[in-house]
């Protein structure tokens, strides 16, 4: 306890010293003494597990390969196969629908919760904990809980019948029209609280004075939100959108638990499809091609988001 206090004091003193002298971490003399060997273990592990296998994967994407015999070069054959197979474009479409709906949904709900919780409430901490706690537990287990709730004879349908809404009750996960929205709903349910935390942190950065000045000038709550709060939340929105985009593009656990890709492949995503083609069907080359496609789509989405942000800046 004492040491941590001392450390915090040391850090504060040093920060003040930097402010006075303008000395930053990079310019110092000790900087040139840090040996490169410090980077070696991290770089080696990351290369061995992620970078080199990814380069190899990009190569296998252009081959026919079962993992045992030598790969055979087929050029763009795997990609052509993906787009001509009956399920191919569907897999791509489901993934894009999930990404768009999830990114919009989880950020909108998260921001709504953050705005609601932002200022003095009697039960603020309880509510914040309650909304956030689903985000720390296993997505697979959360998905099984919802599989039970959405089951034909599950609590949701029972509750609907009890409320006289029996006509709405249906096998949610067994019908193509409701299965995909259900998956998105479960994801939004689990991670809205995480995004709420991101936006709460962002809202803390907005000066109370700015807000009060705007209110004194007669700005209503919508004008205040649109012109004071929203612009200042930009860094938080950037992070929220980027995180949710990456998570949803590679979605796997929740789909496997909720529907397994069914009914009849109507909720298959790029994540589950890549896995099944490789580890169920043994088509390693084809699976690598779909994975490369996934990387391509992620890069396009990342570049698009970056451009949209730059345009807003100018």
């Amino acid at each position, binding site marked *: 306890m004492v040491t941590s206090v001392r450390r915090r004091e040391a850090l504060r003193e040093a920060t003040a010293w930097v402010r006075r002298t303008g000395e930053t971490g990079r310019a110092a003399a*000790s900087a040139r003494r*840090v040996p490169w060997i410090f*980077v070696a273990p991290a770089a080696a592990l990351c290369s061995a597990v992620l970078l080199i296998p*990814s380069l190899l*994967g990009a190569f296998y994407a252009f081959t026919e390969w079962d993992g045992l015999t030598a790969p055979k070069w087929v050029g763009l054959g795997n990609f052509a196969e993906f787009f001509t197979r009956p399920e191919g474009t569907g897999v791509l479409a489901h993934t894009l629908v999930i990404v768009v709906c999830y990114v919009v949904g989880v950020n909108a709900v998260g921001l709504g919760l953050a705005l609601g919780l932002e200022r003095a409430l009697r039960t603020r901490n309880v509510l914040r904990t309650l909304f956030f706690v689903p985000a720390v537990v296993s997505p697979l287990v959360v998905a099984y809980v919802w599989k*039970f709730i959405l089951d034909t004879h599950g609590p949701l349908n029972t509750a609907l019948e009890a409320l006289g809404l029996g006509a709405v009750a249906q096998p949610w996960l067994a019908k193509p029209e409701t299965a995909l929205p259900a998956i998105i709903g479960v994801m939004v349910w689990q991670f809205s609280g995480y995004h709420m935390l991101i936006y709460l942190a962002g809202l803390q950065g907005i000066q109370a004075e700015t807000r009060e000045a705007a209110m004194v000038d007669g700005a209503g709550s919508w004008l205040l939100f649109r012109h004071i709060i929203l612009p200042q939340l930009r860094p938080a929105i950037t992070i929220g959108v980027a995180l949710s985009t990456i998570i949803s593009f590679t979605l796997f656990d929740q789909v496997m638990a909720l529907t397994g890709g069914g009914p009849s492949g109507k909720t298959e995503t790029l994540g589950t499809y890549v896995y099944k083609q490789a580890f169920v069907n043994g088509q390693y080359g084809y699976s690598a091609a779909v994975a490369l496609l996934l990387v391509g789509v992620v890069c396009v989405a990342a570049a698009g988001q970056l451009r949209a942000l730059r345009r807003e800046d100018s």
Partner: protein
Amino acid sequence: MHRYTRWSAFREISLWIAAVPVLAPMYFVITTALRPPGETAGSSLAPPARPTVGNFSQAWGQAGGDTVSFGQALLNSTLTTVMVVALLVAAAAPAGYALARRGSRLSGLISSLFTLALILPIQLGLIPLYVFMVETGLAGTLAGLVLVYTGLQMPLAVFLYTGFFRALPTAYEEAALVDGASPIRIFAQVALPLVRPVTVVVAVLTGLFVWNDFFIAVVFVGDTDKATLPVAVYSFVGQFSTNWSLVLAGATIALVPVLLLYAFMQRSITQGFTSTLHG
């Protein structure tokens, strides 16, 4: 600071209504898991007439099919998570330190490679990695699983450490240098203790990822006695899919460790999740 107005009361009530979808599943899970086999599960919203913990002991005994018990899976998950976090801190902290302190073009290049790896989906490298792990005999072992998780989480850990070391003033390191300390001593005894908050963040974020992940675990240790908790739950559900009381008792067993951890480390975990904002 802020007055509690009628508007505050309205917000408070709305938020509690919004919390119903969070509370209701918790209620359904607990009541169903406590329901004895005689009472029909699922079709009743009322709490069980004669609650029992029998489902929990039965789930604990029968988990994971024939390959792994819940106890074994719990041990596997704990070992894997602890080792991954330890290795990550040991490797990522010095890397982030070096990248933050050396302002050369090379460090910029390495930093951007780590950033690229940060958004690279694992799916692309998964097959070559899997084949390599099978050939070296590392697939199906805890050592192999630890290696994979450590490599995959390295970009995030390095990214966090680099950001915090960049913001950390060098005054103390300069002083230690003048005193004749070696770079390794300066790092380990001066710089690293100052960024202990980041170490907590790295441990929380990567630890929770490893503990909760299903995808990597099912690929590398699925169907073995090295399976982690989510994989054990998956096999368990596959076996007892229609017996919801048993399934939800198993799910609850899987949720308890993380919820306990959250209860004790709420502040660190909350900080961990929002720290990416400042990195």
